[in-house]
């Protein structure tokens, strides 16, 4: 039991004190038993306040501390640090949330908020009284990281980590690295070619001995926690092993009887079951698409390196310290009939159009017809802020990408005309220059609102796009178009299993969710698991690289020291009360409870290295012999009592 408790109530510069009467709170708790001092602070988190608390602990000899301020998610560690510097065990510190869960939640009711604050602070004091000193365990960590996804982002993370001395396992689900960027020609804002960028990254990766690249690989199992994860990676057979000349590969492709749409060209072309690496995709070795291959053996007859029948799946076990998920995005696939998509044959998506530009060298031709007028319709699959659409977010990259594509086609084919049907061009930052360039070269921009979206119609054997243009005072403007390009947004890549496996929470937009949007954009609630690139939110290439390298910096700074302090919140068994029924061991998802002999009696014991402190074992005990540190019967009970008090 703690006898000298220091209580600090924070104004949060008005965030709390505007609604909660701080003086009243102070008065109410001043006379609580064992409260030694009560103070208020303008900003408890400010350096000067922290120093004051440290001083108080030292000079007044406090044995526990309560700060009533904001959510513990923000400052629990800050004040635990204060406690520690003052000479107090950090676990004798209790944070009471009177901002998010009080002053703000009840800003409509200041009197009520004050009343609640008093109860909450009293509960905090009760909990502090019952708090016990805990010491965190240090564990050795492995300076190795699994980077999942080998697009530009994943490859850049891998390079950054490798150069900082971290061992990298780069795990790519498809048979080729390069991701989406390999599919693009000229990219904004530098006009670099996407395939050249991926080629450069791949070459660098080849030079690093501490990067192990696995293609056709998937993470299938994860155990352990930050610093020490044991993972299993399944590697699918490539179906090609050895060498073949270009000519032989060509022949094999010709011989393959299977045909399906080529995802690399977004269905503009067909491919066989033999996957041929395209410009920008690496390694430059073919693979066999097992899902389609009918095992006719035609390819094998041409070169024995083709092994359509091979089934030798490999399972690899790796020991790593952290993850960076860099799984990228999928372009939004418009619904059938959305702006005529799938119904009118010259309506395609922006990614398809970008491939079309790559496939047409001298003249822009689509389905045998020369293309002169191109109508771009923006925000397809983004900013669906009506009730029907599910993607309320802005996909960020599309305005820049579409205007940049407009500039690219004009430069490449000269006589094309671009019409941009948009909802307000969002070429933020320096991308504004691309918008300027597009306008200056004669691209026409028309703006619509969600209430009256463009109509795409087929009449007199031509496709027309019609819109109520708000830039022309709502006049209806129409044009014929040889090609309608739907500027599709980003959706997170289909990777539900990975999200579940790594336990990364999803945001409202279904992208992976970071721990704090502003200051911790690459960290997740799961220690040691980072998210980067477009798996977190739509981004352009530059932003993807920045976030990928930031994730590298973060995970490296955690692992580079070789050791880590663990949360000391663990389950504890009272051997006196335990009668070993095994229910707790059954409940534990981490195999942390074992049966041991305690002075002739079989009892449960917690293996501290495995215990994650979830507490799942505690409610199932029929004799209530197991408790979680920091959440003991005494502490929670005292809190309930304090909160219930009127």
């Amino acid at each position, binding site marked *: 039991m703690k006898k000298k408790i220091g209580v600090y109530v924070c104004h949060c510069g008005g965030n709390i004190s505007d609604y909660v009467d701080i003086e009243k709170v102070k008065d109410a708790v001043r006379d609580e038993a064992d409260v030694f001092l009560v103070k208020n602070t303008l900003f408890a988190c400010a350096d000067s306040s922290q120093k004051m608390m440290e001083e108080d602990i030292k000079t007044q000899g406090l044995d526990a501390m309560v700060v009533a301020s904001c959510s513990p998610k*923000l400052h629990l560690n800050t004040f635990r640090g204060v406690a520690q510097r003052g000479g107090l065990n950090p676990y004798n510190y209790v944070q009471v949330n009177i901002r998010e869960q009080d002053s703000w939640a009840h800003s409509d009711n200041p009197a009520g908020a004050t009343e609640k604050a008093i109860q909450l602070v009293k509960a905090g004091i009760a909990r502090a009284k019952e708090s016990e000193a805990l010491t965190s365990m240090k564990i050795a960590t492995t300076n190795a990281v699994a980077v999942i996804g080998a697009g530009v982002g994943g490859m850049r993370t891998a390079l*950054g980590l490798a150069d900082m001395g971290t061992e990298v396992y780069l795990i790519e689900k498809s048979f080729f690295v390069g991701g989406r960027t390999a599919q693009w020609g000229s990219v904004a804002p530098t006009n670099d070619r996407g395939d050249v960028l991926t080629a450069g990254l791949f070459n660098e990766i080849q030079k690093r001995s501490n990067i192990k690249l696995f293609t056709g690989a998937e993470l299938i199992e994860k155990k352990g926690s930050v610093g020490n994860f044991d993972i299993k990676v399944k590697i699918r057979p490539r179906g090609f092993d050895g060498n073949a000349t270009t000519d032989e590969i060509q022949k094999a492709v010709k011989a393959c009887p299977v045909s399906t749409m080529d995802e690399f060209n977004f269905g503009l072309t067909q491919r066989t079951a033999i996957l041929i690496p395209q410009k920008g995709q690496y390694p430059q070795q073919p693979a066999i698409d097992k899902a389609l291959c009918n095992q006719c053996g035609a390819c094998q007859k041409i070169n024995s390196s083709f092994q359509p029948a091979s089934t030798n799946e490999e399972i690899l076990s790796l020991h790593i310290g952290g993850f960076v998920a860099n799984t990228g995005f999928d372009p939004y696939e418009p619904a059938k009939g959305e702006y005529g998509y799938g119904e009118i044959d010259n309506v395609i998506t922006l990614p398809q159009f970008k491939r079309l530009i790559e496939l047409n060298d001298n003249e822009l031709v689509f389905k045998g017809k020369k293309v002169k007028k191109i109508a771009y319709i923006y925000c397809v699959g983004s900013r669906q802020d009506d009730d029907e659409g599910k993607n309320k977010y802005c996909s960020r990259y599309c305005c820049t990408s579409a205007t940049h594509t407009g500039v690219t086609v004009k430069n490449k084919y000269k006589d094309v005309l671009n019409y941009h049907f948009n909802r307000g061009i969002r070429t933020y930052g320096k991308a504004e220059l691309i918008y300027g360039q597009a306008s200056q070269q004669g691209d026409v921009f028309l703006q619509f609102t969600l209430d009256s979206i463009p109509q795409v119609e087929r009449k007199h054997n031509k496709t027309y796009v019609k819109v109520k243009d708000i830039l022309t*005072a709502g006049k209806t403007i129409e044009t014929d178009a040889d090609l309608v390009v739907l500027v599709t947004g980003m959706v997170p890549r289909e990777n539900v299993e990975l999200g579940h496996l790594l336990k990364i929470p999803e945001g409202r937009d279904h992208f992976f969710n970071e721990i704090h949007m502003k200051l911790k954009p690459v960290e997740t609630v799961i220690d040691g698991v980072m998210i980067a690139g477009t798996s977190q939110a739509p981004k352009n290439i530059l932003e993807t*690289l920045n*976030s990928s*390298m930031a994730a590298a910096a*973060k995970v490296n700074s955690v692992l580079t020291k070789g050791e880590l302090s663990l949360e000391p919140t663990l389950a504890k068994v009272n051997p006196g009360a335990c009668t070993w029924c095994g229910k707790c061991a059954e409940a534990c998802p981490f195999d942390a409870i074992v049966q041991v002999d305690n002075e002739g009696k079989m009892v449960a014991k917690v293996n501290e290295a495995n215990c994650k402190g979830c507490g799942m074992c505690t409610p199932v005990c029929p004799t209530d012999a197991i408790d979680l540190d920091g959440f003991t019967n005494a502490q929670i009970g005292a809190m309930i009592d304090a909160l219930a008090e009127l």
Partner: protein
Amino acid sequence: MTDNQNAAATCLDETQFDVMVIGAGIAGAESALKLGDMGYKVLLVEKEPSIGGKMILLSKVFPTLDCAACITTPKVSETARHPNITIHTLTEVETIQRNSDRHFSVQLNKKPRYVVEKDCTGCQECENVCPVITKDQFQFNLTARKAVYIPFNIANPRIALIDIENCMLCGACEKACPSNCIDFTQKEQQLQITAKSVIVATGFKLFDPISIERYGYGRYKNVITSMQMERELAPTRPFNNVLRPSDGKIPDKIAYVFCTGSRDHTVGNPICSQVCCMYSTKQAQLLMGALPMADISLYYINIRAFGKGYNEFYLQAKDMGANYVKGKIGKITEKENGNLILRFEDILTGKVTEKEHDMVVLSVGLLANPAITKVFKGEKLELDPINYVQQPNMLQSPAQTSLEGVFVAGTATGPMDIPDTIMSAGAAATETSSYLKRLS
């Protein structure tokens, strides 16, 4: 900071560093922290008296509406306390020259504070007795400060300094100081250090709207900049509420003029500043909270709500009643009572329209801060055409500059919001660490 000074005393060599980070805003602090965590010895140089840059002065941040001070101060304290990070405030980099061993010789100019840093307790007794006032630059001139002052309440280090230009040398502060820390004999100090690498995190300058005469900034009292409004809304605000500077009235019709100094060739800044739409939207939300009766109109060209959760935040502001008007403000004229007439073309109707407001906020843009190029001697830090630090390998290694061993973080490369700044700072840390590994 004072902790650091103590640490400095015990440290054997306070002149050799792995990295020198120029600018202790949120980008510089983040790079320094990451590198410090990796075990490198970092020197953080800041020309202002306190660290935290512009972010620490903001009210709240979009779209989470976290109070900026609440999330910045922990980062700033962590930086200040980090065992591997040394901070010099009130210090400017004079010259940077590469040595024969590829390290950089740096000359720093540390301005006198006239206050002994380690002894000041931040009690403000000196401020109380100081008889002179001048405009408070940390409140963007909305209110006054004394000649001896603590920059602002949550400044780090939270210690006093003397603005000698505005001091009348009466000595009252020296008499009043309980810890005898005022020292008028302090002189400018030239410090020589070496660093193996440099991170440029010098941030941005705010556009000064005085050059757009049509808006009357500087002449009309109730035309203020968004940064001034940011201060009015911040917890450490200059007034007791949001008030008009002309007469202390609570405004009830507030207008925002978007793209003031952005997307504008006539002022030499053709690019979009990337944050103004969102900070204005955030301020609108905050104002609707602080002044429930107020009408907020936002005059825009395009709304750039592009980041994670931004579009949703913009829609939320609209739902709360913010009045978004498509049309850039052409002209502002002042009425006798201090109210302002805004003339614009309402794009939706195509008609010239005039509206009266009692306070106007100019959503000013961000400009490059190119002065840093001058300090490099013997080689040139290249800038891009709009004067931001050039990223020669933008889509391969965005933190690289034209100089080997010199990296760039945050808004020194172009306008960006806080998350982008943090990520860019992380990228700079990765590049720097990789470089240092290669070097050794």
